[in-house]
Structures are given as C-alpha cells and as structure tokens.
C-alpha cells in the first residue's frame, strides 16, 4: 500500500498542503453515534505499575557499564567574552575523562548565530565548558578547577530597556529579533472611532519557568560510529535529525530513545546543547556519558515563558459589539531564539471574538537572559491575561454580563482564513457548561466588604490542537492473537500510551490487555512528530486507528477462509471473530486465526490523513473561578475552579481530567506565585531553585471541576478527538484576575498577582489601582 503522495518537494519541514496521504482506505468516522466499547471509557494508565514501583526508567535513570557523569561550567556574567580559559587542572583531576570548551571542541553552530561553545556569552548560565567524570561529585570538583578570564560586556536585562536606542546591544544588528510582525484586517482606526466605549490598557506578564521535575538531559553512548541518546525529550525524531545534522552523521547512525520523561511542558521539544555536548564527551572519553542539568541550570539555560508587555485597545458599541481590537505586543526572547513552537501572543486577538477591525503588532526582543522556549500554550496564555481582562472591563462598563458580552461577539468561523469551524458550537457549549457547573450568578455589587472578600471571575480562550500529518503507526498481530502497536511518538506524561492503546484495541476488537503500545524510539517505529501543540492524540490517534484497520482487514481476509464466510460478514469483538447473523458459538478467537497462519505475520500500516479542506479545526474553553482576597495581607486564595474545554471526543475521561486539572494548577501558579527574579545590577537570576521559585504545592490547590464538553469532532479526523494538553492553562490567570477585581474593586494589570502586588494595589485604593488609560 502506498502511504503517501508527495505533491511537491520540500526543504526543511513540510506542511500539510505539500505532503498528503492519498492511498489510505477511508475509515468510517467515529461520530457522536459510534458504538464504541473501549474508547470513551476511563482506563488507568497502562504504565502505572512501572511508575509506582520505580521501575519506569527515565533518561536520568540510565546506568550503563562504565558510565560517566557530566557537569557544565556556566557563565557567571550576563554578557562577556572569554579572554582566556585553562582546563588543564580539571583534566588532571583523577576520575576526569574528558573536558570540553571553546579551545578544544569542534565549532558547531547553535541557535541562529552562536556556537555550542561560543567565545561570546550572552546570559548568566550560558555554557562555557563541560566535564565528564566518574561521578557527579568529581565532575563538580573539576568544574571548579577550570580557570576562565572573562571580559565583561555591557548588558541589558529588561526587554523594554533593550528596545531603547542607547541600550547595550547583544548583537551588531541590535536587539530586535526580526522585523515586527503585523497582522491587519479592516481598519482599526475607523473601528475605534465607531466605538462607544474603548478600553485602553497596558498589561505585563512575567517570565515563568517550566521547572520540569526531571531536568533536561540525556545519556549518550557510541558503538563505533553509531550514537544512541537516551534523552528526556518531547521529540525523538527532531532530536535525531538535529543531532545528526550538528555532528555530521547520517540519520540512521543516530538513535534517540525516550521511554519515560519527568515533564516537558514545551521546554523539551528541541535538541538542546546538552545532547551534542554529551555525545562529544562520550566520543572523547570512549565511555557512555550522562549529562543531566542540575536544578539551577534547569532554571537558567533551557527555556522559559517569555515576558510580554501588551498595549491593548478594545472598542465596542453600547450593545457590546466589538468594533476594533488593536494590540501592540513586545516580548522578550532572552539571549537566543531557541527554536521549536513559536510564541504567537498576537494569535488569540485575531480569532477568539468576531471583529471586523483587528490589528496586531508583535515584536520580539533579545536580552541578556536565558532563552525563551514554548511553554504550554505559548502566546495564548500571555494574550489571555490581557484580552480576557479587557473583555471583563468592557462588560462592567457596559453593564453586560461577561458571558453575555462574549456571546454577542461569538464567531463560528476562523476569521484568519474565513473558514467555518468544524465545531462551531463548541465555545458556546464551554460557556454554558462552565456557567452551569459553577452556578454563575453574574457579578455582585456593590463590592464585598470586610477583611476577607470573595469574588468570581470568568475567562475564555481558543487554541489549535487539531493535529496534522504526517505521522505513522504499525500494528503487528502476533501468533497468539495479541498485538504490538509501534509508533515513533512519545508519551510525555499525558497518557498517550493509554489513549493510543484504547484506539488500537477498539479498532482491532481486542481487549486492552491484548495490546501493547511501543513508542519513543527512532530505531523502532515510523516517524511521528514532536509532542507539542496539543497535537499528539489528534495526530497519532488516527494513524494508529488506520494501522489497526489495515491489520484487521487482513485478519478478516484470513479468517474468511477459516470460517468459510466472506470477510464483509465478519466482525471482531472482545478478541473473537464473529460471523454476522450467525450464532455466537461459531465465533473463533483471534488467536486461532493468527496461530493458523503463523509464522506468517499480519502487519498493518497507518498514516495520519490530511485535515479537512475549507474548514478550520480548533479547540475552545472557558473557566469560572472564585477567589477570596484578604485585604489585610494581600493574600489571594483560589476557592474553586470550574473548567470546561472542547477537545472533541474524549478518548479517556481519566486522562483528560488529569490534563485539565494539571493545567489549571499550573495556571494558578502562573497567576499568583511564579516568576523569575533577576538582579538587574548583576544580571543574575536570584530564584533559580524550587525554594524561591514558587510552584503550587498540594496546599495551594482548590477543588477543580472539569465540566466535560465531550462532543466528537468527526470532521477533524476519523477519531473525532482533538488536543487538551495545553488549553486549560490559558484562561486561568485572567479568570483569577477578574475574580480579584470582583472581590476588591481593584484591577491588577501585571503578573504575577503576588501578595506584595495585591497589597500595593489595595494601598493605592480603587482609584489608584485603576491604571490611567493610555491615550489612543
């Protein structure tokens, strides 16, 4: 079977309109009325036992014979040149097997215009040298023996400062990453003139750290000229391609394996320097080398959510109809463009509400800080904090309920491509279900009094999550009737293994116990894309289903000879093959048929087909929040959250609920406590640890209710399922900010909404807290 047809040759990574699957048997789509036995039902994680017994082996847990441990020396200065570096004492330390730095490492390009080991260092934490030794302790000792003489250069930490003409420059060309990106439809000036009310505000959002509990890192080992990397990554195939390219190796000589990983949240979707450094140290020492970052490095060098400043003008008629959305966005990139999924803060302004006049301008700025990288719904999370607070402010000024205001600006079309959504009612359903489950009663007035004041808030969002081609899967039927499903995707902790097993078992008519899913290994399985963009289930689910259908078709052909009935009349259910219309006792176990043809093996192959033409596949959501603000301390306590999100068909309610609750939990941290703190005098991060960088603990999490939507989106793909990993983080912070306003009558425009900040706002009072509007 031909699996794909290439319309035109491509350079770099393809897009779906260039690369189409054509010769797949069309699968009957699982619509709302599909009778499914396994898909749609709760199932515990198939890898649960490994995870609760400590047997799940993460990148950090590789222990190979002769393995060395690596440590990295990092720049103590935010901007410097290495004048002199001496590694001889480190090399001489007993137990040290290899030391690399700019003097002795091959010159390998990294980021857009830098090197793995660069003489110019652009942030405190940038890689200066690396040591492989017999223990992490010896490697740490060796790092301290490296002598470096730095020439300190002028630096800039704040991204708004970096835009000023006299700011210290990171690069000759200046601090702007690219030309500002402008999107425009209609005429915002006219739209603003037409408006009866204009909300004109500036919002800022902070740098947040992913702080995956397993740090970034890998274990590298060579056999001859073949390299294996056990990497904590969201994309085995991308890492393979990038590492092969950097090291000048053919792709088939690089194998990347990722079975379990301790969190990614976007930050592990590209190859980072440690992949290449570990490979070079292993090559040089002739030993396997494990290079895992320590917690400080994890907070300095491998990504963060970019800070933003968003100047938003929102114009509306008296009845709430939006006439203009105009936003100027500045966002910090850190010292380098790391690559991977972009952070399009402008995106949601263009799509969430019906509006004829929209202009977004986004400029990205270099600063002498660690590089930003995608963090769970990059861009949308930042934009929602501004847009959804502005909508709230508009609702209050117009005295319209905030949900009603959003309904008055509802769109059933993607206004970027002027295409209808495949799920035009989903966002409305999210509004309804969130409001119902929460018991939304509109805003109270006048504001609460007393020292502890309660308030409620609402926010909405959209997101992609459609999945996309290409992505592939294989199914092998074993002689005993069990099945192995193989795909090159990864389970980054989201439940992919379980949900894909359910899809395969459903299509094959086998029990969950009879199907094993294998993933995360470039040497064992066909290509699957990076696990990012909430795309994995919607990308690989259909490919797995197609592979299972292909195997089932062959199985039924074989069974038709065995049962002496035409394949069209055969059905597989509960591991047995039935002849339609005949007594159940004529059914034979699948294992009888596969045993009869063994050692011949049935192999199914499947690919992800294209997304629908002329329609737009999106996901949506809405959240209601109740908070209590202690006006004497500035403490904000989130009392409860109701989250309603459209992800098409829910394959496994347990996994989806976990994603929703987990994302809301991260959203609470982002809203209230998380934020990188940099000492701007020295350019160093002050809280690069889990003590002073405050991620939520068990004590910070209120009841979080998932108000399911669960409407299959069969036009999106044959499984009807869309993404859920990122979206539920998007509306949490603005919903909390809106609830705080409801409680205390003071609006917070700057994240995080820390106790300190709330206290300051309270001290300034409602009038002082209401930031003066910026003139249009």
């Amino acid at each position: 079977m031909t699996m794909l047809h290439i319309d035109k040759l491509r350079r770099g990574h393809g897009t779906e309109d260039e690369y189409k699957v054509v010769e797949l048997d069309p699968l009957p789509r699982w619509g709302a009325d599909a009778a499914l036995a396994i898909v749609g039902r709760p199932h515990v994680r198939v890898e649960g036992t490994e995870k609760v017994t400590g047997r799940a082996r993460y990148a950090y847990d590789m222990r190979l014979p002769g393995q060395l441990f690596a440590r990295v020396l990092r720049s103590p200065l935010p901007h410097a040149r290495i004048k002199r570096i001496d590694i001889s004492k480190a090399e001489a330390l007993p137990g040290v097997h290899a030391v690399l730095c700019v003097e002795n490492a091959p010159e390998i390009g990294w980021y857009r215009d830098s090197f793995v080991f660069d003489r110019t260092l652009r942030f405190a934490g940038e890689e200066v040298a690396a040591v492989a030794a017999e223990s992490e302790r010896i490697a740490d000792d060796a790092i301290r023996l490296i002598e470096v003489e730095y020439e300190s250069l002028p630096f800039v930490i704040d991204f708004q400062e970096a835009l000023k003409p006299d700011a210290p420059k990171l690069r000759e060309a200046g601090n702007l990453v690219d030309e500002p990106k402008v999107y425009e439809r209609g005429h915002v000036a006219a739209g603003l003139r037409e408006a009866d009310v204009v909300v004109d505000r500036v919002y800022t959002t902070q740098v947040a750290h992913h702080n995956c509990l397993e740090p970034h890192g890998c274990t590298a080992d060579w056999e001859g000229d073949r390299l294996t990397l056990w990497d904590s990554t969201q994309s085995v195939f991308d890492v393979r391609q990038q590492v092969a390219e950097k090291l000048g190796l053919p792709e088939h000589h690089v194998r990347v394996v990722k079975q379990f990983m301790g969190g990614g949240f976007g930050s592990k979707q590209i190859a980072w320097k440690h992949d290449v450094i570990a490979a070079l140290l292993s090559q040089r020492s002739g030993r396997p080398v494990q290079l895992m970052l320590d917690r400080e490095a994890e907070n300095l060098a491998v990504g963060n959510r970019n800070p933003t400043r968003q100047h938003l003008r929102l114009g509306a008629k008296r009845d709430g109809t939006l006439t203009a959305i105009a936003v100027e966005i500045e966002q910090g990139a850190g010292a380098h463009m790391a690559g991977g999924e972009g952070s399009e803060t402008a995106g949601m302004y263009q799509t969430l509400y019906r509006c004829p006049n929209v202009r977004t301008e986004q400029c990205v700025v270099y600063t002498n800080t660690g590089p930003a990288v995608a963090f769970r719904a990059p861009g949308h999370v930042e934009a929602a904090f501004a847009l959804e607070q502005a909508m709230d402010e508009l609702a209050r000024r117009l005295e319209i309920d905030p949900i009603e205001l959003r309904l008055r600006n509802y769109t059933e079309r993607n206004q970027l491509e002027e295409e209808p959504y495949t799920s035009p009612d989903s966002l409305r359903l999210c509004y309804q279900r969130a409001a119902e489950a929460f018991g939304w009663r509109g805003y109270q007035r006048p504001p609460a009094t007393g020292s502890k004041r309660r308030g409620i808030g609402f926010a909405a969002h959209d997101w992609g999550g459609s999945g996309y081609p290409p992505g592939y899967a294989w199914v092998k039927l074993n002689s005993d009737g069990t099945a192995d499903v193989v795909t090159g995707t990864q389970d980054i902790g989201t439940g992919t293994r379980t949900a894909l097993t359910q899809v395969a078992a459903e299509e094959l008519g086998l029990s969950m116990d009879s199907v094993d899913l294998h993933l995360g290994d470039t040497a064992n399985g066909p290509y699957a894309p990076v696990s990012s963009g909430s795309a994995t289930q919607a990308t690989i689910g259909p490919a797995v289903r197609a592979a299972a259908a292909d195997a089932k078709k062959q199985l039924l052909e074989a069974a038709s000879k065995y049962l002496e009935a035409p394949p069209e009349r055969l059905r597989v259910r509960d591991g047995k093959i039935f002849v339609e219309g005949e007594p159940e006792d004529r059914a034979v176990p699948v294992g009888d048929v596969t045993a009869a043809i063994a050692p011949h093996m049935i192999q199914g192959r499947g690919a992800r087909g294209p997304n629908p033409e002329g329609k737009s596949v999106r996901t949506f959501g809405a959240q209601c929040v109740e908070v209590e603000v202690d006006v004497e301390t500035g403490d904000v306590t989130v009392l409860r959250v109701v989250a309603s999100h459209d992800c098409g068909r829910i394959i496994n309610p347990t996994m989806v609920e976990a994603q929703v609750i987990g994302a809301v939990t991260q959203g609470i941290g982002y809203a209230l406590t998380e934020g990188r703190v940099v000492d701007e005098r020295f350019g160093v991060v002050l809280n690069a640890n889990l003590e002073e960088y405050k991620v939520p603990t068990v004590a910070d999490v209120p009841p979080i209710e998932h108000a399911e939507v669960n409407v299959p989106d069969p036009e999106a793909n044959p499984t009807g399922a869309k993404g859920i990993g990122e979206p539920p983080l998007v509306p949490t912070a603005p919903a909390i900010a809106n609830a705080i306003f409801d409680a205390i009558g003071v609006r917070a425009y700057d994240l995080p909404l820390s106790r300190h900040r709330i206290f300051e706002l309270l001290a300034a009072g409602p009038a002082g807290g209401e930031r003066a509007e910026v003139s249009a």
Partner: protein
Amino acid sequence: MPKKPEVVTLSVNGVPESVAAEPRLTLLDALRDELRLTGTKKVCDMGDCGSCTVLVDGRAVYSCLTLVMDCEGQEITTIEGLSRDGELDPVQRAFIEADAFQCGFCTPGQIMSLRGLLNATPTPSDAEIKRAVTGNLCRCGAYLNIVKAGHLAVELQWKVATQ
C-alpha cells in the same frame, strides 16, 4: 592524600549493603549511583521538592539531605522495596487506581511520604494526608488525585489488615 573513605553498612530494602562513603556522599547518590536503585529521584538536591523521599527506620526523610555516613546500621526502604512478592503496597495500588500521577517523576517520593505517614498513623485525617505530601512537589499538578490516593490507600490497607 585524602583519608580512605569509611565503609558504611546499612540495610536497603532488607538487603545488607556496604557503601564506601566519602564524607559528602548523600544517601540519594549512594542509592542511585552506588546501589543503582534509580527509583528514588533527584530533582532539586537541596530539600525543596521531596522527590528523593525514602524511609529511614520507617520514617520518611529527604535522602538528598541525608549523608550516607549517618546511615550506619539503619534500615532504608526505597520505592523498589515497597512491593512484597510481586504484591503492590496499598499506597502503590491507590496511586494507580486514583490516577495520582502523570509523568510519574515525583511519584516515588509522594508514595514514600504517604507510606511514612501510614506507618505512624494508620487512619490519618484529610489534613494529615495533605501535610504528609506538602513537601512533595508535582509539576504536572496531580495533587487532587494524590490526596484521593492517600484516602484510598487507608481503605486498601485496612482491607488488607482485616482479611
């Protein structure tokens, strides 16, 4: 010449072990690197996150803040030692049933913290369950189900005890 490292003898999951202990070797590194028991996780290495929690003489402790030199003669239980004869500990079963993890990296620490609690307090209150895992960070945000699993573990343990 550095002093010859002392040898510490301790029991790990019921097996007598001896570790050549240089003064700064933590129990965490001894378990992971010397004894190759990698179920115990290294995350912050400074007592902030609880991922390295093990039982020392039945009590939950951070193994990253424990020097192996101080473990002479002590009985250490790690996540690998919780299940007996292939039978999962009630806390482990509860974690699977209540879906109390996503990526699973903090899970061994969470489980050991709750095991420590149940050793001392077989029927803890909701507040006691929460307090037991307050020092265990979970970046995936599985806290609500972790607390559920704590309650479920109490039930499962009671069933096992009364069988």
